[in-house]
């Protein structure tokens, strides 16, 4: 990651709130020394249980809350020193859409466009383009109170993108959306990535995180406990890849000898699973050996390991929500 490309940078970012809970010393640490870097054209997914500190982190990066300790820089501006400049360059999709339900979509977006200082001509062009991109062109003059949950969410996303910000902080961008709308949003995020925006997506949807994100950060009790690309995380937390070989004949009697070649995890009469640090070396060797034993190999593939397994491994034993 080139230093010049970094649009979001957090160093030891910490946020404490006053708390009356026993044993808290009068403070509750919502975010505890978070270090993050997100470059232009990169999507980072922030995963974590409820109350883990995702929203507080995003609020600090959006210069809505000030850090108690540490620092953060967004689009070249320090969040504590230049909060208004940061806010001008950040598109924030809040946890709840938070729309004014008595307003019409066009008026609502025009209102926010003004607040972000988008010139009138450009404002209307952006509004129409974005509404069309999200399949909402016909709802431009509709009252927000009559919109479905998914439409409200899309409108909130349009609001966040209206001023064409270089940094987008999206909290649950596809929640409450039907699959088609969710795909539109995902495509849109992918397109923003190609336009060299830096994007942080907070989500509980692990499949979506895996599909969208270049890197994933898992946050727990205010700390980043795992950070990396999906494959790095899988390797780091679930161990080396798990391979499965299926054969045409029963493996009777061959299993003990196979175990000398590979680290067998489980087996059946016509299949076995093994872990390997180096599939390129191990797999051809095993296939050659099986063939040499007169066993026909039907398939050899990696057992799919999803992000959910990684996530559960990280938050395991925490009891889910963290308050």
């Amino acid at each position, binding site marked *: 990651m080139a230093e010049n490309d970094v649009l979001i940078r957090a160093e030891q970012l910490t946020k404490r*709130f*006053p708390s*009356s809970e026993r044993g808290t010393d*009068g403070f509750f640490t919502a975010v505890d020394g978070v270090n993050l870097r997100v470059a232009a054209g990169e999507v980072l997914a922030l995963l974590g249980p409820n109350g883990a500190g995702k929203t507080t982190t995003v*609020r600090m990066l*959006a210069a*809505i*809350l*000030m850090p108690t300790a540490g620092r953060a820089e967004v689009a070249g*501006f320090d969040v504590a020193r*230049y909060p*208004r*400049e940061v*806010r*001008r360059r*950040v598109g*924030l999709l*809040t*946890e*709840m859409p*938070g*729309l*004014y339900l*008595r*307003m019409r979509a066009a008026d609502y977006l025009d*209102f*926010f466009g*003004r*607040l*972000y*200082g988008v010139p009138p001509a450009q404002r209307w062009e952006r509004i129409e383009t974005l509404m069309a991109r999200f399949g909402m062109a016909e709802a431009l003059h509709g009252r927000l109170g009559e919109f479905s949950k998914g439409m409200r969410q899309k409108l*909130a996303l349009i*609001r966040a993108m209206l001023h064409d910000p270089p940094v987008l902080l999206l909290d649950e961008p596809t929640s409450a959306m039907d699959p088609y709308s969710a795909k539109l949003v995902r495509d849109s995020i992918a397109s923003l990535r190609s336009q060299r925006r830096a994007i942080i997506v907070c989500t509980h949807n692990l499949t979506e995180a895996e599909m969208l994100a270049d890197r994933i950060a898992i946050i727990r009790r205010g700390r980043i406990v795992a950070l990396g690309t999906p494959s790095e995380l899988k390797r780091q937390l679930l161990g080396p890849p798990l391979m499965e070989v299926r054969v045409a004949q029963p493996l009777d009697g061959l299993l003990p000898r196979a175990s000398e070649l590979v680290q067998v995890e489980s087996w059946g009469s016509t299949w076995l699973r093994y872990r390997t640090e180096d599939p390129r070396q191990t797999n051809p060797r095993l296939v050659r050996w099986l063939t040499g034993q007169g066993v026909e190999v039907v398939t050899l593939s990696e057992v799919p390991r999803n992000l959910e397994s990684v996530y559960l491994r990280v938050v395991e034993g925490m009891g889910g929500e963290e308050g």
Partner: protein
Amino acid sequence: MIATMESLPLRERVALALTITRREVSDTLRDWRIVVPIVFLTLVFPVIMNFTADVALDFVARYGAPIVGERLIPFLLMIVGFFPISFSLVIALETFVGEKERRSLEPLLATPLSNLQLYAGKILAAMVPPLLASYLGMGVYLIALYLTVGWTAPPTLLAQIFLLTTAEALVMVSGAVVVSSQTTSVRAANLLASFIIIPMAFLVQGESLIMFWGRYEVLWWILAGLLVVDLILIRMGARIFNREELLGREIDSLDLRRGWQSFRRFLLQPDGIEGALTLRRLLRWDLPLVLGRSRLALVAVLVAVLGGVGLGWSYALRYPLPNGVLVLKGAPMESFQEMQLAFLPPFTIWGIFNHNVRALLLEIVLGLFSFGVLAVVLLLVPMVMIGFFMAQVSFAGYNPLLFLATFILPHGLFELPAAIVTTALVLRLGASMVSPPEGMTLREAWLLALADLVKLFLLVVLPLLLIAAFVEVQITPRIVLWVYGG
């Protein structure tokens, strides 16, 4: 060089705040629950009041009491103006805490607008529709009155009512912001709104009495008082209305345990002072620390004290006592012992001590509800009296400084510092809510000021008052007799 939002011209910054106002006003006007009563109070209620005034004038004229009718007309004008502005409170609670509850505030907080722009935009939005309705209602009432009974309002009265109405609306709106900052739900805000409604109800009753009494010049003083309250509440609201406060508070809770812990820490271990609170520690560390923290309030109170003495002197110039009323020479000791007027305490140590303690406690209580202002006002009463009598003594041919040194200073050396310190600490308590010191939350600043007040009141003021009472009963009369006695 970085081109920042702060470098925007003032006109553009104001325009952004007005964008908020415009949206909120149009949102308010889309809510029939607000529009219907406002329209009723603007167009129908003034006509009803006009009819009432008409009937009342006829009625009192039959019994030869036209003055009642004459006083009723301006009173009804005030009522016609006041009813619509009561909606400003409802709108303000809705616009500040309602947005928080519906989670529509966060997108607004994410915009580049400053806290002040958001605050000003919202304050205006809450005030404009009810105020316009109020002005329109008063206009309808005045026109109808002119057409029916030919009454026209004197320009001064008209200006007073319009200005009072505006100042009252501002008090309610800025008060609502303060209330909203302490809650996250409209329901809780409505419960707290009684802190605004009840004083306003008292104020309107007071204004009514003054108007029926016909002392319209007093309305200027009320207006001045309201403007002071406006300034205090706006300052306080501007301080409170910030992103950190708005998003940091997630639930409405009265955290007594944490409050008590903080109070106890401020009381016993202020600024890291270690060890038990002994008399030595109190005098060496705590007292200088508290007085140092309260120096601005002390200066303000001292200026008020001198001003009070000066005011008393100026009253004496306007209302001199007749010759021969004030005779100091040859006063017997019995004159002190027999001094038992209804409003004076018994001339005993306990009687004087009890009276002074109650007076200072009353100052504290009144100060709590008035940001310390009424505490200062209460302290001014004896100061004005001292100035008044010093002047009268001087007019009667005596030395006023000798009068001060004999009648006041012997016990005043203990009593005056006690009263001044108490008043200054009450004033600081009020100021801590308006402008907490940098790096402290409003609650911490208030609890620190309260702890300082409690500590000094119990450990310094009460002993001083006891000594003062002893001196006042046992020593002052003797000095007076020694100086002036026959």
